[in-house]
């Protein structure tokens, strides 16, 4: 009497396991977020190298400021990956910008910090950085990032950063 029940149970278990494997195979991508090891991401520190084509160090910021630019960098950390993990469409995350200025006499001023988010379009190599009410729309080419920036105090300028 027990044999038919055992056969039935074994058949069901076999069928269920097969179904699980099938579902897992079919739906793998739908349940598998990208993990670390992103190719082509912006993660790391990007140092300002030129402003309006001139060396960033001691660059006199545009009117009305009389400050000199000393150094600056943007730290970037990816938090979300959209699309193919090996060739993503888009990555988003956190960005923190730090820059150091000196007054016209050369005396260092306290560093300035901006915290915000970035959105990088891998297909078009464009990056949008949103911080402290400002939005910078730039481009990325290899290890170089170009950010046309506009600031109420410092006017409009083009910043080029290199990956550190």
């Amino acid at each position: 009497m027990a044999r038919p029940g055992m056969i039935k149970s074994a058949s069901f278990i076999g069928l269920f396991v097969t179904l699980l494997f099938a579902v897992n195979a079919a739906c793998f991508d739908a349940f598998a977020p990208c993990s670390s090891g992103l190719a082509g991401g912006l993660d790391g520190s990007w140092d300002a190298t030129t402003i309006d084509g001139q060396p960033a160090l001691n660059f006199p910021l545009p009117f009305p400021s009389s400050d000199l630019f000393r150094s600056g960098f943007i730290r970037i950390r990816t938090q979300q990956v959209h699309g193919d993990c090996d060739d993503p469409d888009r990555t988003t995350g956190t960005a923190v910008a730090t820059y150091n200025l000196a007054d016209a006499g050369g005396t260092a001023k306290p560093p300035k910090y901006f915290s915000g988010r970035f959105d990088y379009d891998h297909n078009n190599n464009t990056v949008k950085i949103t911080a402290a009410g400002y939005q910078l729309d730039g481009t990325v080419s290899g290890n170089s990032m170009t950010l046309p920036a506009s600031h109420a105090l410092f006017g409009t300028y083009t910043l080029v950063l290199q990956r550190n």
Partner: protein
Amino acid sequence: MTCLRSSRVLQAATLLVFLTTAANAGAQTCRGTPRGGGLAFVRGQSFVGSTNGVAAAVAGGRFAIDGDYRSLTADAEGVSGFDASVRFSLLLGGNNLLVCPSLGFVYNSEDWEFGDGGSLTTRTGSARAGLGLGYQREVYKGLSLIPFISADYDFTAIVFTLDPAEEGDEELSGDTLSRVNVQYGILAQYKFFYAGISADRYSDTKGDRPLLARWMVGITFGGSRSSQRRASVAAPIEGPGTVRSPGGR
């Protein structure tokens, strides 16, 4: 210190007793646990890293509450954080299909240490409103499968707190996002035990892959075979994370 710890243990025990008692009152829960609610270990995975935590759900009559807490183990050095969520649901429907309008809140906190002594804390809060669908089907004696899907409108606010290595002028900002979070998955329940998987994607997510996946293993509060036969059901536990998050996160 000892007194404080004892107090927390007592609070946790009281909460557990409350949850269990409430669940035994013939409750049924939507979005994340089988009928009658449950308590589960949850492991999540996103680009940032993995999360481990607990999720619980209880219900009474036509109302349910569920929530979870997950601690982040980040892949990147210097990153830590946690997610927590709570949700209230109205349970509609009958036999096997359950429809659940819900209101909830998801909170995510993530610390990023730069390595030079500075750090950035990102706090993300999302108010969430949406609809969930859960369908329970007994496929064999005592074994039920419960596919579920939900769509929620998320209004997310992000606040940054910077603790720089060198004091300076901080121009801190917040940000807001509006998007739809879609969560889908499937649970398998056998008597008082259940296990399942769910995934989250936002309306701005591109590609096939979700932004967050969760695996859960737990026990139900009302999972006897006889009660299941009377039952309808259910859906996933929790929200993003990362935001999970933001999120998700």
